[in-house]
């Protein structure tokens, strides 16, 4: 498996498909005095082939924004399109089906089903779509091999280390070949070196699965500056808005390549 080098040159945006399109999106939680205006008029585009990082201080609305992009949360107003379809134009079930087809998720908390093997956890998105069990498990096994867990398919999440669990989660996110991969703080629960492996996997795994096609994108929410340099583009949020351009500090971090490959090898799995 080839691991990605740092930020690769990006072809001119104009020639590529628009994968995600937000236009003046607003979102509030609660009402009256206690209302929190979490997203205050965000507009942005993510093109096919892009690997975008969304950074910013805690509470600035990053998670809320990717929830809206991935269709698990409705915007109050504005447009939130994925490949030309506004989430709010769909029924609940319609949204669910489209999420299954278009979106892959990697969470900070891994969110694996604890009583089910790595292989079955990975196969879940396919099983939900009605792919027959044999085929789903075969494809899941391939994906686990891709993330380096080909030998641990029968393991339960509790028998795997945090890094391995996150790799299972990446395999699960990729198995359905999503057009948009959403990762919320994928490295926050991991140590530095494991975090780096995970972000590399996200990058290389997506490329491997898509064969380098320019019709898919990855959005990673993080405030882990040590992985900033993997991004093609960084968007910085502040107080519910996206800054016109990222601050100098962020840009500086994004040019600094941290390398942990000299650190001790992969953490051991708990017994």
């Amino acid at each position: 498996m080839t691991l990605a080098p740092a930020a690769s040159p990006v072809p001119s945006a104009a020639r590529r498909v628009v994968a995600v399109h937000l236009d003046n999106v607003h979102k509030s939680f609660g009402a009256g005095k206690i209302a929190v205006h979490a997203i205050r008029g965000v507009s942005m585009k993510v093109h096919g082939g892009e690997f975008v990082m969304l950074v910013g201080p805690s509470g600035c609305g990053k998670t809320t924004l990717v929830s809206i992009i991935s269709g698990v949360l409705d915007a109050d107003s504005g447009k939130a399109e994925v490949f030309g379809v506004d989430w709010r134009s769909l029924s609940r079930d319609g949204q669910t089906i489209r999420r299954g087809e278009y979106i892959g998720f990697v969470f900070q908390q891994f969110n694996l089903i604890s009583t089910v093997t790595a292989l079955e956890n990975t196969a879940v998105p396919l099983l939900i779509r009605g792919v027959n069990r044999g085929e789903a498990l075969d494809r899941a096994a391939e994906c686990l091999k891709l993330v380096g867990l080909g030998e641990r398919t029968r393991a339960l999440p509790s028998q795997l280390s945090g890094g391995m669990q996150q790799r299972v989660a990446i395999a699960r996110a990729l198995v359905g070949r999503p057009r948009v991969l959403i990762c919320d703080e994928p490295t926050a629960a991991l140590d530095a070196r494991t975090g780096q492996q995970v972000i590399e996997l996200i990058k290389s795994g997506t490329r491997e699965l898509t064969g380098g096609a320019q019709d898919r994108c990855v959005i990673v929410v993080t405030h882990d500056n040590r992985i900033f340099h993997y991004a093609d583009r960084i968007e910085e949020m502040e107080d519910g808005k996206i800054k016109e351009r990222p601050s100098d500090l962020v840009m500086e971090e994004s040019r600094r390549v941290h390398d942990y490959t000299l650190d001790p090898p992969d953490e051991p799995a708990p017994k």
Partner: protein
Amino acid sequence: MFRIAVRMLLGDKSKYLSLVLGLSFAALLIAQQGAIFLGLMQRATGPLQNVGQPDFWVADPKTRYVGEVRPLSESDLLRVRSIPGVAWAEPFYAARALCELPDTSFKTVQLFGIDRTTFIGQPPMMIAGSIEDLRMPDAVIIEESAIPKLGGVGIGDTLRLNDQRAVVVGICRATSGFESNALVFTTFQNALRYVPQPRNSITFILVKSKDGADKAQVAAAIDAIPTLKAFTGEELVARNTEFIIVETGIGINFGITVMLGFIVGVIVSASIFYQFTVENLRNFAVLKAVGARSRLLIGMILLQAFLVAIVGFGIGVGLAGVFSWGARRPGAELAAYFPWPLLIISFFAMLFCVGAGSVLSLRRVLTLEPAVVFK
């Protein structure tokens, strides 16, 4: 996905165990209370439990309870015998008598008088001695559980029934009645001697219709006699049960207990199952996020509910069955009766319990915002 639903259920052994144990307890409660109630109702039918041969029990049309009858006359018996289609009609006598025991204590016994030639109405099973010995003078047959109650009497011993001599010639097995008096069988004529009746003396007329005769017609002919009505065993049991439920406190008291068992069962199992779903809420949210539609989630939850219902039902009813089997030992004072309709009723009760729980669970899961996966 259904396999995964099952895995979610079975994967956490301790949770699964507490779920199943809770449900078994609920099922046990429901089945057990039901069995005891039915057992008592059955006991309350007294002689009906032990007499199997007749098609009809003829009694006064107003009869409501086996312990409360208006006696019939000799001429009633003759009129029934003269109805075409009647193969035989025999008198049956039930009364209470006082039995003096050798140690000067006494005991009320339930006395049954049966025809001395045909022995129609005889106890279902002889353990010692022979039913024919009842033709000997002053002969009585006692029920085995009555032996200790009557001071350990055996064959050949003499008792005093209402101050008259009675010789034990046999031991039988039969189910005792409500009051759990000792059962004593003798001939119709003997019984009348022990407990004389001023005028009419027949408690029930036991009737069998001829082979090939239309039973409904025979019954109609009997019913046509103004002072008589032909009851099938089931009809009499139904009247009896209704009487006990309506006229005695047993119906309301036991009804409350059964209801309580049921309500506790519903609450326990519904809340346990709901709790199980709540603990799996994050999993359901993830499934929702990655594309599981409501239909699929409903299917998964109902499957889980159905599985635990079946397992819980099996264990609970198994225990209730063991219990009522124990209660069926001859002479047991415990009344429990477990017929198959009760099995079906408790199964549906169980389904209802878990169904109530899964409705709550479904509401929770279906209204769940998938956005919680990021939390």
